[in-house]
């Protein structure tokens, strides 16, 4: 347990500043959205959320975000492990490449996907469509959130000594077994944060998805695209209601993951 030291005025001022900053940037918008949504009572919200198009948009948004998160978690952990534990030519390059989705504008990422997989693209698929179809949306969501898991796990992994892994090898454990039984327990917290960030980012993705999805209502329109269109159509309640659902789910994810982390910490003693 940390001791709570008596605070001097400067500390109190700093704490107030942080609280005010958080209030202005986080709480105020949430309040505004909630307020905007229930402006005319619950009925319009219910109507919005019962709309087939909205339900479909929410469903594909959640499903595809989960798929994107699973992909990014799996590959992100592997990327982090390879970068932290393997020495090979081009490692620095790969390390830099992982961050590209952070510095790339999502819209440009979307157009790049069209150039690659679209009509007359270099990698245009022949049997099924990628862009302007579900795979494109999943790919876009995956791309924009790609660095989170590896960037959360990487430093944790770097801080872990390599000897326990080597000890496991000499004790006969395979690479996969060592990874799962020795490495993973050490990086769970990083993975959890990575998953939270990845999922939140995938859920909220707009720019890249808007470019590659085609935005067909009730088909390839995601929740964020619906929000954007609803605002365009002066349907503020629709926009706020769906925003509220997205926000609530993000908060829920955060809570569940925090709970999981808390349990892990307690297990560890």
């Amino acid at each position: 347990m940390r001791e709570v030291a008596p605070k001097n005025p400067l500390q109190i001022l700093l704490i107030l500043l942080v609280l005010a900053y958080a209030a202005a940037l986080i709480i105020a918008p949430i309040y505004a959205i909630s307020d905007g949504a229930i402006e005319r009572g619950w009925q319009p919200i219910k109507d919005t959320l019962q709309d087939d198009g909205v339900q479909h948009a929410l469903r594909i948004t959640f499903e595809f975000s989960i798929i994107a998160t699973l992909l990014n978690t799996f590959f992100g952990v592997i990327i982090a492990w390879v970068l932290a534990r393997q020495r090979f030519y081009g490692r620095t390059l790969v390390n830099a490449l992982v961050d590209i989705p952070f510095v790339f504008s999502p819209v440009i990422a979307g157009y790049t996907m069209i150039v690659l997989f679209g009509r007359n693209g270099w990698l245009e698929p022949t049997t099924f469509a990628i862009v302007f179809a579900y795979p494109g949306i999943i790919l876009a969501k995956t791309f924009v959130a790609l660095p989170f898991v590896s960037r959360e796990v990487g430093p944790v992994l770097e801080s872990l000594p390599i000897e326990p892994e080597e000890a496991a090898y000499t004790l006969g454990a395979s690479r996969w077994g060592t990874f799962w039984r020795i490495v993973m327990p050490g990086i769970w917290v990083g993975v959890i944060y990575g998953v939270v960030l990845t999922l939140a980012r995938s859920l909220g993705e707009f720019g890249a998805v808007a470019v590659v999805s085609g935005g067909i209502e009730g088909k390839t329109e995601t929740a964020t695209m619906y929000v954007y269109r609803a605002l365009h159509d002066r349907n503020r309640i629709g926009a706020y209601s769906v925003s509220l659902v997205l926000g609530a789910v993000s908060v829920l994810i955060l809570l569940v993951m925090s709970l999981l982390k808390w349990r892990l910490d307690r297990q560890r003693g």
Partner: protein
Amino acid sequence: MTIRLDHLVKKYGRQTVVNDVSLEIEQGELFVLLGASGSGKSTILRIIAGLTSLDSGSVQLNGRDVTRLSPQQRDTGFVFQNYSLFRHLNAAANIEFGLKVRKAPRKERQERVAELLRLIGLDGLGGRMPAQLSGGQQQRVALARALAPNPSVLLLDEPFGALDVKIRGQLRHSLREIQQQLQITTILVTHDQEEAFELADRIGIIERGVLLEVGTPAQLYRRPKHLYTANFLGTANVLNARRNGKTVYVDQVSLPAPSETEHLQNQAVHLVCRPEEIDLALEREQVSGSLIGRGRISNITFAGSLERATVQLIDVSAAKPLHVLLSPEKVRSLGAIPGQEVFVGIQDFHLLPFQEN
């Protein structure tokens, strides 16, 4: 032959960290690889375990060529300097790990864990997490973990390096006992010559990736084949000399040549002599060993049971000051004070071929 290393070579870029090392170790032997840090001794250990690849050469364990095998297939137990326990598993689970990997039956695993906990003197502490154990206890668990699957070879990389002096002594003792009880072929890497002397059946001296020489502790101390060994193991006084006939000439002083140095006939040599083999006396006749002339005491320091003196030779020009160990009785009889002139005798010495530096 339990371990046989043939011409091991390992390079990192242009630097050769292991240079043509060959070695044979007998069943049940406790072999110590001794060298300064960065000498490549740990790399050799890691090559044996398969944790570091090698550029050329071969490793045989129990007559089986394991050079191309993964660490998992080599059947070695490895103990690291920093304990390296699995932080999320308790002591018992750490020890059990290798057995679980081998899918040993549950009952067998439990029995083996209990047996090992007893062996390392941590009976009843199996439920503790690593963070709840002291450094010494953690290293005991690490030893038990390495021993659990009954490896054919035990490899220890500076296992006591992170512990304080007292615990280190206790652990050395335990290790020696356990090793003798189990008769497991063991290689221990250390930079601590005291540790090497205490534990080793044989010692191998490593310098800059080269295995200089191998021998029992006494052989290496008294009759080293290399000047490096002489200097690395304890303190050595080294004088430039020349062997002619049955005589060794140190400047103008002549001493009888040891018979086993016949091969250095008519050569410039180093005369190597341990501090405890030098005698000082006030009268020429009282000196034991071969007289090397007069000297002047320049410094005396208290060193516990013995006192350490430095003596500058007067009759030998260009000689470095000699390090001498004196008993309290000797100091009293000499009435030794800095500046005093004494006669210097050498009781036992050894010749090595001359080399620059």
